[in-house]
């Protein structure tokens, strides 16, 4: 019995040691790459870079604003750090990540979606694992501890045991690790300024019945974002990207500077679905955004 327990413990510790080493290597490779947005944010720009404008949000922020067009129209560097399959808490995390690298921006654009207008769910978003290489940063630790779910909380546990997170998200991380080890500059579906686009051929044919919502944007995370931008001398702009179906009307009590383009585009061929514009829609949305921004300057 004693021999069994000793041998089992020996092999278990050996296994944990190997798993620890391999996952550290994997996460280090990803940390040095540009594969996912959090690593791209760190490695694609010079330390302490001054941005004219930086966009944060979900796939809607990603699909609607073209920072190349913005950079052409406005002087200065603009980049899109929005990440698909995420919610407002992730946008705040990315913003913390942005400031933590010593970057500064004149304008911080937070793209807000309908589900996040007044509250946000306290659940982990699908692509939050992409912050795993930065799991030891205090803001990432706090985020994972607050939002991660389950008995083990694999992302939160990754601070001490990185193989929990790496193992849980293995199918999402193995391929990128392999690619990043060969080609560290490879970016996953976005350009050198973080832009992604849906091609025009995905445009829809039918227009749905419209829906109407009223809000004062009372989500407390927006308040936290506002405080963060004030501390870092940035001007906060809340951006509501175009919807095919939904109209969002802002109440007067809304305390933020908002560019509300929820009803900017009505034709279905500019949308790949009810919430994402295709490339031609993106151009319209970005031009309108630039016009509004010029008024704010």
């Amino acid at each position, binding site marked *: *019995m004693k*021999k*069994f327990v000793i*041998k*089992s413990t020996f*092999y278990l510790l*050996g*296994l944990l040691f*190997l*798993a620890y080493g*391999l*996952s550290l290597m994997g996460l280090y490779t990803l940390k040095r790459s540009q594969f996912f947005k959090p690593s791209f944010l760190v490695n694609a720009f010079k330390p302490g870079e001054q941005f004219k404008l930086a966009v944060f949000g979900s796939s809607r922020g990603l699909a609607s604003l073209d920072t190349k067009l913005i950079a052409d129209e406005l002087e200065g560097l603009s980049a899109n750090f929005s990440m698909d399959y995420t919610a407002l808490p992730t946008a705040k995390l990315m913003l913390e990540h942005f400031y933590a690298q010593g970057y500064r921006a004149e304008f911080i654009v937070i793209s807000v979606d309908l589900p996040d207008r007044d509250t946000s769910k306290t659940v982990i978003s699908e692509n939050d694992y992409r912050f795993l290489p930065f799991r030891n940063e205090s803001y990432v630790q706090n985020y994972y501890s607050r939002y991660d779910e389950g*008995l*083990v909380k*694999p992302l939160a546990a990754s601070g001490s045991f990185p*193989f929990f997170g*790496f*193992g*849980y*998200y*293995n*199918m*999402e991380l*193995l*391929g990128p690790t392999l690619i990043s080890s060969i080609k560290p500059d490879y970016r996953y579906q976005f350009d050198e300024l973080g832009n992604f686009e849906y091609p025009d051929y995905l445009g829809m044919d039918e227009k749905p019945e419209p829906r109407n919502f009223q809000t004062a944007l009372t989500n407390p995370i927006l308040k936290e974002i506002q405080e963060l931008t004030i501390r870092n001398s940035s001007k906060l702009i809340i951006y509501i990207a175009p919807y095919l179906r939904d109209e969002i009307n802002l109440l007067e009590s809304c305390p933020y500077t908002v560019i509300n383009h929820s009803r900017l585009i009505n034709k279905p061929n500019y949308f790949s679905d009810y919430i994402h514009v295709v490339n031609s829609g993106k151009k319209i949305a970005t031009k309108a955004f630039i016009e509004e921004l010029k008024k704010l300057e």
Partner: protein
Amino acid sequence: MLFNSIEFAIFLPIVFALYWLFNKYHRVQLWILLLASYLFYGWWDWRFLGLIALSSFIDFFIGIGLGQTDDPKRRKLLLGASLVANLGLLGFFKYFNFFTEAFVDAFSLFGMSLEKSRLDIILPVGISFYTFQTLSYTFDVYKKQLTPTKDVLAFLGFVSFFPQLVAGPIERASHLLGQFYTPRKFNYSLAVSGVRLIVWGLFKKVVIADNAAILVDEIFTNYQDQNSLSLILGSVLFALQIYGDFSGYSDIAIGLSRMFGFDLMMNFRFPYLAQNINDFWKRWHISLSTWFRDYVYIPLGGSRGSIAFSVRNVMIIFLVSGFWHGANWNFLAWGAIHGLMYVPFFINKAHQNLHQDSFWLKLPRIFLTFSVVCLAWVFFRADSLGQALDYLGHIWSNEGAGNFIFSQTKRTIIFAVVAFFSLFMLGTEAFFENKQKSEVLLPSKYLLILALSIIFFGAFKNHESFIYFQF
């Protein structure tokens, strides 16, 4: 509680430590096992603990009754009572809705319309397994092949033994019950072989079955949009999923039992290396097929008659076996397909001397058998008979344009992982079969690699229950 869960990872070391701490107190060990087994089972739904206790007590007292009388009428009455009670419970929980609907449908054929009423019945996990296990005890006592036990603690432990409680192997009292009577000493070699089997079983479940499940579920849900290649791969992946899932469970169950000093019967012997369907059924879910052989096929007359008589009995066994899996016509179709494929080999006794041929002669036969098995699995996996036929129709017509696997990088990676590790699994099995072994027991250094592959390739995010729990 699932074997591949955190709860079980906490439960097992505690029970293991407590159990061997009292290795000089046999009765205490039995109590620990019984309480652990009831906790393990009650973790799903504590209300069903009463059911398993009821089933156990019925057969325990019927066994005592059978031991006290030689009167054939009274013995038949007691056997009948056990059958009514056990099959009644099984019938109510598993087959009530099926028979109600079939009854109403039959009336509608004669122009009469009856209202279909379904009961919202939750199927108790593993009911088909422990019901068959207790029944086998009563059959054996009835046939006087087994002395009825008077040790209620041992009997309750035998019925509810947690490693094999919910998905087998379906043990015979003649093999397992006796092991509960005798004190156990910790056996290092047995425990180590148990750990090896557990790691191998976990690998098959978490790396192969659960990853394959991600692809299979989507392909079967959206089969109408898929092209032939995607549908063929869907059926092959399901074959790998169900094997990894079920044989993985069995390996873990046998391995766990060895850690507690028990020996369970083999349930799988490398079935995808079978060279015909007859050979396949000597390797797949052995505990169930031998149960049907001993308690249904032989009492029906077995092969003691004309060929037509034997073939009839074979077909009955396959249909009953299909129906055992679930109250659905597609399971019956699955059983019928296997029965029809089995009969020609059964008549020709073609399974004999297959293993003396060279590997290259075996390979086409293995491939052909695997293809037939994959085809039949479509009926097993589909939600209905109609869907299964439609799925096969779409393979033939190639109407769909989509290919779920190759349309996204992540899915292609999952497919590559399943394909690579499945080939590794089958290759390892072929290696052990060549060495005339019936189980895979890898040396420690390979186990370490296997455990690493579980961590880095396992589908933890797609945490699936075991398929056979629903039966």
